[in-house]
């Protein structure tokens, strides 16, 4: 049987297309992993970061997450945006609500970086079937299956504000909540009220060349934030957009 089995195994994988790995990204990710470990990054501290990205539909998932992660890195105080690694990955929604058919996995692009204190920042972007790009933004230090799967905890569609995760959708305790949406370009700050706590988030724009005059916000909120509202402020502190659930 062994010869027959060998041939069957060879045939089973013979027509599998192989997309070359980005060796630079692998090396960058390995360096980030080492830095993260050296920094002792796996403490379960909640992280609050904000991101304002100019752009409507990001033209390419990989470019989108790279640009977004670069902006996040800047917002988090990282000096070197080249520390952002974009890797291939997998977006998985196999644990959607009971009674629904689980969707299969789909390829995604994953951007990873770390803050100076070693906190990991991970984003995922993928191309939806309608042609739009999506970004996900999880942050679950110490709770993930592997470094490359940190990203699978959250996803939102940049074409509209969506809130996912947290107790609102019945996610496991400790899950981060993420917010995605669009804001006027004049927004320079975001005032977020999460529960009884108010945060002032700086606007960070991306230097991505394909982005237009719309501004998106992706905000990751601390674990346990029950209620969320935000106001976008311009440079004169005028409220120019508001979201209050």
């Amino acid at each position, binding site marked *: 049987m062994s010869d027959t089995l060998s041939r069957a195994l060879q045939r089973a994988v013979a027509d599998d297309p192989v997309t070359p790995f980005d060796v630079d990204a692998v090396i960058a990710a390995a360096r980030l992993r080492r830095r993260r470990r050296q920094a002792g990054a796996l403490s379960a501290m909640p992280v609050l970061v904000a991101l304002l990205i100019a752009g409507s539909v990001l033209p390419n998932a990989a470019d989108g997450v790279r640009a977004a992660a670069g902006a996040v890195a800047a917002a988090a105080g990282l000096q070197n945006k080249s520390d952002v690694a974009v890797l291939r990955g997998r977006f998985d929604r196999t644990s*959607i609500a009971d009674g629904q058919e689980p969707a299969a996995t789909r390829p995604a692009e994953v951007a990873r970086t770390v803050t100076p204190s070693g906190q990991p920042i991970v984003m995922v972007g993928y191309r939806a079937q309608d042609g739009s790009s999506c970004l996900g933004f999880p942050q679950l230090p110490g709770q993930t299956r592997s470094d490359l799967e940190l*990203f699978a905890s959250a996803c939102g569609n940049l074409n509209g504000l969506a809130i996912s995760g947290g107790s609102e959708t019945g996610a496991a305790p400790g899950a981060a909540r993420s917010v995605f949406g669009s804001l006027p370009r004049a927004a320079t700050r975001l005032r977020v009220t999460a529960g009884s706590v108010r945060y002032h988030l700086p606007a960070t724009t991306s230097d991505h060349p394909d982005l237009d005059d719309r501004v998106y916000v992706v905000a990751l909120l601390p674990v346990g934030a029950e209620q969320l509202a935000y106001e976008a402020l311009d440079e004169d502190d005028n409220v120019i957009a508001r979201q209050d659930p």
Partner: protein
Amino acid sequence: MNGQQVEADFRAYVIARQGVLRRAACLLTGDAALADDLVQSALIRCWPRWSRVCVRGDPDAYVRRTMVNTLAGWRRRRWTAEVPSERLPDQPAPQVESEVRATVAGALLRLPPRQRAAVVFRFLDDLSEQQTADALGCSVGTVKSQTSRALARLRQDPTLTALLLVEDGALT
């Protein structure tokens, strides 16, 4: 070997061996996307130790062993990274899968992980028993017993047996 040489060696290795590693990963995981993850994760874990890996002289064995351990680690940990959602923003594209692949992958996935790895390394990668033992981190005797049990199970798998009969006319 200095840092630049190590990096050049690693790049050359990844370029040369990624196809072989990914094919094995496909059958270990039963999922092409997961196979990408597995190889990528293994390479990321191997890179910081690459100078030592090179000194040992058989990087394939080290990377394969890392793949097996990484996959085992994924299974051990409870999945906590997903967020349930009431509404999917989009639906996945249907996956095109050949009958051969579906049948073989299905039969392999019904094997216990160590038996599956033994079969993949022995009969896809054509490794010796010693090389397979190195990859799995076990003795040659364990490889023999795992392989024997795996083959016995595969012989009793009706879908795989039917496929092999069609392929070869008879089981050899």
